[in-house]
């Protein structure tokens, strides 16, 4: 069960831009089914509030969609993508499901433990970064991998991971994508088929 932060902001309100985005989301659904926009709105809350959702944000979304608080609270606790307590400005999610684990995800978590914080969901010493183990992020072909904020970092090994995390701790955002430089999930040693097709 996710921990709810003890320190909570008293008020949460969408910024002007986010309110506009929220309206677009709500208008995607029929009027009496506007509660369907709950996930999109929660993402907006999380984006606006440094990667986590405060209780005031839950209330705010519930009021906006005219549903009881508990219904939004249920959704927030159900999905692992929503954080209920502050996370770092750089939020590292290391995939530890089977394919990544076979390809050495354990080493990645060890590095996180060493460089960021001893336990998951704890801020690093300079309060800028935190990490968490997650289940499959759907990039098994590029295992092992991790997600930092909205971006994927794939085909990692020890040295590359250390490099990335050291950059993060210096408040710099590394270039996302495959560490080996391959495009998407193309074969490791270059194309073997469809060589004649340019964009394949």
């Amino acid at each position, binding site marked *: 069960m996710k921990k709810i932060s003890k320190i909570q902001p008293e008020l949460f309100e969408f910024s002007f831009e986010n309110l506009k985005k929220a309206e677009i989301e709500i208008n995607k659904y029929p009027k009496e089914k506007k509660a369907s926009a709950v996930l999109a709105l929660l993402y907006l809350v999380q984006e606006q509030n440094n990667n986590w959702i405060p209780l005031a944000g839950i209330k705010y979304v*519930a*009021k906006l969609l*005219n*549903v*009881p*608080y*508990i219904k939004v*609270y249920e959704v927030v*606790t*159900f999905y692992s993508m929503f954080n209920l307590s502050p996370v770092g400005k750089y939020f590292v999610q290391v995939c530890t499901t089977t394919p990544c684990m076979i390809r050495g995800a354990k080493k990645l978590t060890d590095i996180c433990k060493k460089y960021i914080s001893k336990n998951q969901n704890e801020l690093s010493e300079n309060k800028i970064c935190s990490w968490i183990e997650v289940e499959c992020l759907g990039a098994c072909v590029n295992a092992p991998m991790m997600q930092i904020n909205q971006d994927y970092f794939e085909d990692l090994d020890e040295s590359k991971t250390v490099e990335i995390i050291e950059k993060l701790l210096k408040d710099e955002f590394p270039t996302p994508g495959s560490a080996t430089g391959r495009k998407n999930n193309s074969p490791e040693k270059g194309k073997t088929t469809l060589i004649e097709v340019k964009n394949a």
Partner: protein
Amino acid sequence: MPKITVNNKEVEFEEGMTVLQACELAGAEIPRFCYHERLSIAGNCRMCLVEMEKSAKPIASCAMPATDGMKIKTNTPFVDKARKGVMEFLLANHPLDCPVCDQGGECDLQDQSLFYGFDNSRYKENKRQVKEKYMGPLIKTQMTRCIHCTRCIRFATEVAGIPELGAIGRGEDTEITTYLEKSMESELSANVIDLCPVGALTSKPYAFEARPWDLKKTETIDVMDAIGSNIRVDTYGWEVKRVLPRVNEDINEEWISDKTRYACDGLLKQRIDSPYIREHGRLQKASWDEALKLLISKLKIYKPEEIAGMVGDLADLEMIYSLKSFFNKSLGSTNLECREDKIYINPKERMNYIFNSSIKGIEESDFILLVGTNPRLEATILNARIRKAYLKNKTKIYSICNPGDLTYPYESVGSSTNVIKEIASGQHEIFKKIKKSKKPIVIIGESALQGNSGAYVFETLKSFLLNNNFIRKDWNTLNILSQNASKVGAIDLGFYSISNKNNFIFFDKLINDDFKFLYLLGADNINFEKKDKFIVYQGSHGDKGAEIADIILPGAAYTEKNGLFINLEGKLQNAYKASYPPGDAREDWIILNDIANMIKKPLGFNNVNKLRELIKKEIQSEKNIDFDHTSQMDFVEKNISINHVDYYYTNVIARSSKVMNECKQLSKKLLFTGIEKAV
């Protein structure tokens, strides 16, 4: 009708039934946890698996609609194995704490594991840990026992109309809770205890009090409001341990309000267990002999006109009738009153003071107009019916006055008697709407009938409904919402003082100090000054009545005597004795009968059978009431305001109850406005 074959037995079923319901028709019992007749279908416990022909996998019978020609088997090894598998998973995380669990002995999981459970566990893993959740002073939680059937969530959202419960987390970590563990703000909240198939939600006041098999169970009637909910009283020796609902489709279905359920600890406190006499301003214990002798000597001093009697809100027909005959026959006085306040009544016809559409009839209605009433607090079970009608038929609900949150949406249409005038003369929008509807319901609350405008409100609305043919044999739109269990019965027995000109003679005389001797029979909700009146209080609890009394006679509470009650629909119901009165206390009609015999003016009955015969005769008899009213009442302009109902404190038993006191403290600020709504 379509047919279904269950275990080679063919049965007809109604369109729209589920496989589970069809199986029950065929007499095959299906185990279940999440399925409940009165709640929506969830289909998440998987205990009701059955075998369906041409299906490789077992199906969840509660969620599968039955179709014509289906072939179902419920007793094959295949089904048994499937159910055993489900049970094993349910028990994987269920603690083995039946010996300390309050649900033990009446637990669905315990019962069903007898048939589908294994004798040992294959799990070596640790069981799940879940923190206890706070859900208010009534519900005790032990969430490790929860099997996530979500019955409580569905009840809160659908029946109670308070969507405050939810399931947070996912998978094994799912937990049932209220939003941030605040207490449930509903007068029906404790019904989740009955719904919970395991011991996750149990009764807090009843915790570790008794085991169900040790209790004596008595099926009886509730008196906390005028609904007359059917209840079962569980007693251990003298003590009433708990009150549970009993199914009655016409009245309370299978719900009861929190007050009905938890005021019972008030039966143990503040009891009057011996007669008392006031000497030099202080109440002294006395014997029955002393008390009755003093009473009789006092009765001789006063003239019949100076003597008056009142019955309280919890009185049964026996009490009312014996006090009435005691006054009429033995004392020659007719100063009797059952009302607590100046509330207009018109006892000419029975339909003038009962709930004519019947509680069940609410479901058929297509238009409801509330006039000066807050049914949520005045008749909680009835309010749940209105909500049911709203959910089922999208019934339009209007209200004169604004009663706050009623758990369903309604439109408030002003609060002045002017609105009623406009409706009657056809100027108001309500007029057209009521005309269009087939089975409208108009519910007039006691607040609307109060004071000098009460007569106008009632007579105008009645003649309006009569003129528009809404008072028919098949449908009667006129409804009065009484608040007291004794009210309809008392009016039926003629326990009131009215005249053509003045509906409130009794109260006027009371204020003018025309009465010198007052007999209060369980009447505690009173507001007058004592001055030099001699007051006799006969009742069960030391409350407002006993405080001002000069003689106190100990009577029995509603669980301690056999009694007849008439509920607000005019339905006669039998209440049975579950316990016995404490100390020297006696049943009330016996006390009155004794006094009458002592002054040599007997009441004409010496046993309860004879008494009941007389009561039934009195109710059925044609009454020649000298009460002639003109339907053209003078218009009185007044703002109708709903009297504040102190829900947890309405009667002596509730006021003596510790649990009710706790609830009151908690809901003090929320009572009038209802819950904070997510708007």
